[in-house]
């Protein structure tokens, strides 16, 4: 219900009254209907399900998310065993929602 994968829009044309893009998924190109993502332009990444683009990928957000993931648990590993307990307490704010108020990120 869910198999939607990210691809890069390489070309946009109109076919049969629909806004159609040639979208490149890691070297594989398919024609995709872009009618639901009017904001998507050539060079943008979009998520595609059964031949329809459903959402533009927010690339800044993607990079930010990855960076957050990369940071998780990193400090813990850099410390020797004996320091782990102390370190866990010290780095607890690494987790999102340090004070329980998270509604974003």
């Amino acid at each position, binding site marked *: 219900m869910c198999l939607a994968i990210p691809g890069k829009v390489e070309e946009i044309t109109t076919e049969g009254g629909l806004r159609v893009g040639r979208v490149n998924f890691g070297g*594989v190109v*398919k024609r995709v209907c872009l009618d639901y993502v009017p904001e998507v332009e050539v060079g943008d990444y979009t998520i595609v399900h059964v031949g329809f683009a459903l959402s533009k990928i927010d690339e800044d957000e993607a990079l930010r998310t990855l960076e957050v993931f990369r940071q998780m648990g990193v400090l813990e590993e850099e410390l020797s065993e004996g320091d782990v307990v102390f370190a866990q307490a010290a780095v607890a704010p690494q987790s999102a929602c340090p004070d329980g108020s998270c509604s974003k990120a």
Partner: protein
Amino acid sequence: MPEIAKGEAPVVIKDAPDFSNWSCPLPLVGYPTIVMGHGGGGKLGNELVEHLFVPAFRNAALENLGDAAVLNLSSGRLAMSTDSFVVQPLFFPGGSIGELAVNGTVNDLAVSGAIPKYLSASFILEEGFPLAQLAAIVESMGKAAASAGVQIVTGDTKVVERGHGDGCYINTAGVGVLRDGIAVGPHRAQAGDAILVSGTIGDHGMAIMSVREGLEFESQIRSDCAALNGMISDVLDAAGDAVHAMRDPTRGGLASTLNEIALASGVGIAIDEARLPIRTEVQSACELLGLDPVYVANEGKAVFFVAADAAERVLQVLKSHPLGRDAAQIGRVTAEHPRMLVARTAMGANRVIAQQIGEQLPRIC
């Protein structure tokens, strides 16, 4: 070879037949399509043999045109194999049913430890099948046979009524001579054996998908269809009976082959998904259609089960061969979880890769 136009099935050859390329096209020029008479054993059928098959396959045994080909084979054990080919579309990126028919049987003999020698080729053609397509298929078979060092020495042609066939079906049977001292078999894998694959997986199946109606996509993916006997010969020269089992993972892909050997040998197999060689585009195409590359067909790859101390040697031999450049060791045979194929995922967790039921289907969920 005429240009192949991609698009709606069936794939059509764009150019008009270029009879000047044929060895001796006349008097076939008058019959642009196959008719029932071509299968009747009479004049029309003979003309096909004389002007199409013989020139393309060219060898003494065939040219005797007897009911049976008379062959010389060294004494010893023989291996024999047969396969039928019904692929659609007939022409796909990287090959055609012709190359598949030759290389498929050559490979079955080669992975059994035999040196392939002679093939038969039987055609079941549908009335109305374009002669130009048949010519292209037959020419490709002649080239594939020459490249593999085998001869197509006998054959047959039958024609079925329009609507009762899929254009062209081919059966090939082949014989080969078993090498001395080699006794490979799916039952011979042993705990501790290294498992190697000769190159990237999933190329053929995804090449076919890329031109299949309803699912087609643009890509550079080409079938890996190839004769493996040369490469396998190099491996056996280097490692001899340290090679316990070999198989070419065709229909059902790598997963099916490994499951079959696990069952036949009663051993467990553990592979590392991160070590499976897969072309980026093949992976992408699989992502698009929701397919798992381990179940996708290959037509130019071999899997080897070798004694652990011979693994490195075999890997180097494979990598030195043009068809084995991307070879890799992908796992080991283990005494644990007998008859099961277990893969270590990129996450470091384990998943059982079960034998699949029927053909893998694209999914949207």
